[in-house]
């Protein structure tokens, strides 16, 4: 009897749904065709170097770059002159933190960030620690939120920079950056506020003035633009300074040298423009799909736990633990659906997600977590298929799980002497 339910399941693919389904839109996104069309002429027709000042090829490229800066800045309420083009947000985060830490080191050597930040912030902070800076890594609340008080409590006279992300890439939790920025500036107007806005920009309203931000990291490939292009927004009034991390021809007002990849920048600009125009309606649509996914799964399966605040969350994000079912085995069952897991088995480090750990989620539940990232091109029919597949797969894997059986028999798993290996 058990063997029957433990065997392969069949779920019919609804009409109009094409496999594989991409539901991992926090890792990256498909480039919107409108973005591709905007980029194309800049490969073969307008291929000039934007730094060439003496011919029309250069002028055309430069004009396109300037227009794109305007589109990118407009998305976050900034000015085109404040955009420093980078290769992506990893570089933007490195430049923001290292650049500001270096420039302002005479004012202090203390930085505050959060344990749930992206690795490009965490690892940059670790390097700064090795160079003599002090870094406080705040532990968020169980729902993933960092309060303004947590930050101001950690601030000292030595604090030169606070870095808190707008929205988290794993759990989708959205921080109240406006309240955080206000609290930082109220305590010390000179302390800089950096936010990694990669996952939030273009998905939820964000404005650099309202957040009182000084430095903001962006990446095109999370908003239906091309990979390998991003930006650091650097406030001009009052002027924020950073030491460059890449030296060379003095591009980007000396803050980031290197020939500008014009087609990518044009694509980034177009993606930002579309995001700004469509964000409102898209957020409503994605939140409805996400809620449909959530209800579809949790109405049919018990022992599921959402990781992170459901209220303060990106519209397209659902991160959920399916107790007693290991994440990688579930990913294997969902092989025609691209999602990701916080399970150790799926990471190079063989450690479960450090983000879930920071929230206090136990390792046994972290191993069972799945992140769904619903995006612009997902449909209701896809969501319905995913619900069916997830529910049946979890049921099958639970039929295979000794832990599920023990749980059903009323055995407290904490009372067992396990043999960690």
């Amino acid at each position, binding site marked *: 009897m058990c063997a029957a339910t433990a065997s392969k399941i069949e779920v019919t693919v609804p009409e109009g749904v094409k496999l594989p389904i991409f539901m991992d839109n926090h890792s990256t996104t498909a480039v919107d065709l409108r973005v591709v069309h905007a980029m194309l002429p800049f490969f073969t027709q307008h291929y000039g170097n934007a730094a060439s000042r003496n011919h029309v090829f250069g002028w055309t490229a430069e004009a396109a770059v300037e227009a794109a800066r305007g589109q990118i800045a407009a998305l976050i309420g900034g000015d085109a002159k404040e955009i420093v083009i980078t290769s992506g947000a990893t570089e933007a985060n490195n430049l923001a933190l290292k650049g500001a830490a270096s420039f302002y080191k005479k004012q202090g050597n203390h930085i505050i960030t959060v344990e749930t930040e992206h690795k490009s912030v965490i690892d940059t902070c670790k390097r700064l620690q090795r160079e003599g800076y002090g870094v406080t890594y705040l532990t968020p609340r169980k729902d993933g939120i960092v309060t303004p008080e947590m930050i101001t409590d950690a601030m000292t006279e030595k604090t030169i920079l606070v870095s808190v992300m707008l929205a988290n890439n794993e759990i989708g939790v959205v921080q109240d950056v406006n309240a955080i920025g206000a609290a930082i500036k109220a305590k010390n107007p000179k302390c800089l506020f950096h936010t990694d806005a990669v996952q939030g920009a273009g998905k939820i309203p964000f404005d650099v003035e309202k957040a009182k931000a000084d430095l903001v990291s962006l990446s095109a490939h999370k908003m239906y633009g091309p990979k390998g292009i991003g930006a650091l927004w650097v406030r001009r009034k009052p002027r924020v300074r950073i030491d460059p991390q890449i030296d060379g021809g003095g591009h980007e007002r000396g803050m980031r040298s290197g020939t500008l990849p014009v087609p990518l920048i044009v694509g980034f600009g177009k993606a930002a423009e579309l995001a700004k125009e469509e964000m409102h309606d898209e957020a409503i649509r994605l939140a409805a799909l996400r809620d449909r996914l959530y209800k579809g799964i949790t109405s049919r399966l018990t022992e599921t736990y959402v990781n992170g605040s459901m209220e303060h969350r990106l519209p397209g994000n659902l991160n959920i633990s399916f107790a007693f079912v*290991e994440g*990688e*085995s579930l990913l*294997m069952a969902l092989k025609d659906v691209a999602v990701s897991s916080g399970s150790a088995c799926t990471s190079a480090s*063989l450690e479960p997600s450090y983000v879930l750990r920071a929230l206090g989620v*136990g*390792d046994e539940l972290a191993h069972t977590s799945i992140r769904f990232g619903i995006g612009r091109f997902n449909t209701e029919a896809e969501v319905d298929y995913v619900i069916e597949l997830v529910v049946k797969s979890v049921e099958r894997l639970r039929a295979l799980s*000794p832990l599920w059986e023990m749980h059903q028999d009323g055995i407290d*798993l904490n009372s067992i002497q396990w043999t*960690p290996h």
Partner: protein
Amino acid sequence: MAYSDKVIDHYENPRNVGTFKNEQDVDASEVGTGLVGAPACGDVMRLEIRVKDGLIADAKFKTFGCGSAIASSSLATEMIKGMTLDQAAQISNTKIVEELNLPPVKIHCSVLAEDAIKAAIDDYKKKQAK
């Protein structure tokens, strides 16, 4: 990561899933159970053997773990059926690695399956000694 066809086959059609616990005709004294691993590590295997006349007459398993862990334990139940306890105790994880074509990062799954076999045999022997 790409899985070998054998891993996929065992994952999709696991052999010998279950427990002897609820089977009327099985005497508890005939059964040895090995429970190895830990939920916090992301894999737990439970392997049961039913011993008759010194031979492993039947085996059953349940596993919480990745596809390779499920496949390793499923394969282990197939391998030990019909063996003497001594023969089964000789099975090393490398046999499972070879059979399933496990990549280096999944070797611990085969080790766990070997441990589960040994733990089940030990449990059975302890019961007999009583």
